């Protein structure tokens, strides 16, 4: 249950898998993304509402052939340069995209968590998204005849999140902004959770939810594993790092040098922390 991140990725993340590394600004599982780059996984289908720096890194490192998403940017900074380069110039190789709205993606995760084949919403109407995204259809209400947008459930092979805390049995506690992390884990066939700390007992925390160990595959102790995202109660968002990423990621060579040095060139997240110095 509680294992190293290296083992968890080696055992549960395979080439060609569909992965959801979720996190809504808060609790983004950067360390897990780096370990996937280190272990050179390929042909991944990445799913996430808000792909940001860590997905930019996975895309630039050549791990990804498809991205399903609803907003791909560097919040408060601008573009995701590696994502743009892949879509605009097919570098390092072509990237297939499946594009939705936030509401649509949230509905898809919730349907996946609920064991339903699809979900529905009042969405997409009058936009150009349905013309380009085949996973947006319609369904008619059998009572009112209203037509609603229908989207298929998302059931990733592996759901990966970062959380504040686990107990020794592997029960995981999360608080603050919860995003779609619970749904991403419950919708996934396997799941990996990195945590800030492992404790004997989970103290009650206002606003906290608990994911019981029996719905999780692996729990890994990785302090700071969300950096430059944050874990409420443990760290704050490193906004300077997000700003700095823009320059690093704009240039292919600068990006490759950075990834080689700090991610591929480090043994684990602890070494990464030293090498980037936070």
């Amino acid at each position, binding site marked *: 249950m509680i294992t190293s991140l290296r083992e968890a990725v080696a055992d549960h993340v395979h080439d060609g898998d569909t992965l959801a590394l979720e996190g*809504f*600004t*808060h609790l983004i599982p950067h360390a897990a993304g780096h370990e996937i780059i280190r272990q050179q996984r390929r042909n991944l289908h990445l799913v996430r*509402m*808000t792909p940001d720096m860590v997905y930019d890194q996975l895309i630039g490192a050549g791990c990804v052939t498809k991205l399903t*998403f*609803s*907003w*791909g*940017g560097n*919040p*408060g900074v601008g*573009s*995701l340069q590696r*994502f*743009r380069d892949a*879509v*605009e110039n097919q570098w390092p190789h072509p990237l297939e995209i499946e*594009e*939705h*709205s*936030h*509401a649509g993606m*949230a*509905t898809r*995760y*919730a349907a996946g968590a609920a064991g339903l084949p699809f979900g529905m*919403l*009042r*969405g*997409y*109407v*009058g*936009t*150009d*998204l349905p013309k*380009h995204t085949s996973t947006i259809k319609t369904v008619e209400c059998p009572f009112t005849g*209203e*037509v609603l947008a229908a989207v298929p459930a998302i059931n990733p092979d592996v759901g990966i999140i970062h959380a504040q805390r686990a107990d020794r049995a592997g029960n995981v506690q999360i608080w*603050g*902004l*919860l*995003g*779609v992390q*619970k*749904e991403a884990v419950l919708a996934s066939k396997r799941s990996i959770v990195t945590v800030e700390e492992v404790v004997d007992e989970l103290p009650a925390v206002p*606003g906290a939810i608990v994911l019981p160990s029996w719905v999780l595959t692996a729990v890994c102790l990785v302090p700071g594993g969300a950096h430059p*995202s*944050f874990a*409420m109660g443990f760290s*704050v*968002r490193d*906004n300077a790092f997000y700003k700095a990423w823009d320059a690093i990621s704009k240039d292919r060579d600068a990006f490759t040098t950075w990834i080689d040095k700090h991610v591929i060139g480090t043994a684990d997240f602890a070494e990464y922390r030293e090498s980037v110095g936070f």
Partner: protein
Amino acid sequence: MTEYTTDELMIVNAARHLGALAAADKSRCFVGIGLPSTAANLARRLYPIEPVLIYESGCIGSKPARLPLSIGDGELAETSDAVVSVPEIFAYWLQAGRIDIGFLSGAQLDKYANINSTVIGSYESPKTRLPGAGGAPEIAASAGAVMVIMRQSARAFVERCDFRTSIGFGDGKGDRERFGLRGGGPKWVITDLAVMEPDSATCELVVVALHPGVTREQVVAATGWALRFADEVATTAEPTENELGTLRSLQAA
């Protein structure tokens, strides 16, 4: 008179609308980060009836002491009346029609207030790949009314968007009704030059107010369609010392 930036001008004018709306019991704002969040937080400090800030990250009734730098800023969760999951904020709060005012912006806006934040050029081989839809399509569909805050230029204010990420009035009057949309759609477009509103007969955006010192020619030059003006075009009031002082101390916090 104090100098001010065009951002400050847009923020102050947006905040004035939010203050008036809150006084009319239209106080629930679904805000993103950036100018809308700043305008909403400014209005909370300027007006007796405060807008209720709701962030797509799941924060309801946030009262941040300083401006959040990201939509997931810890400050938002810590000062909220309630924090809910992302599926819930979109389903139980936005879709259910509990939001009075939504905010939108983008790379392109057309004369019917449709917005593009997806691609410049063709979708298959874009000249510029933009971040994408995020919450915009459903904000545009379900918010009681939408406020657009966007810098004006002929490149951005176009006859027709390369891609419709969120709908304003589609191809004109009646489209929202045909689509069965429950929200009221864009009611104000606040730019660095002017304020536009949809014409009640055609839903085409027309200029209802110019900012101080801005000429009609400047606005026409900064618009990519044959821009019309309302019969009566007002001039927005200069940002006051109080508005600017409150905004700057908010931004300095």
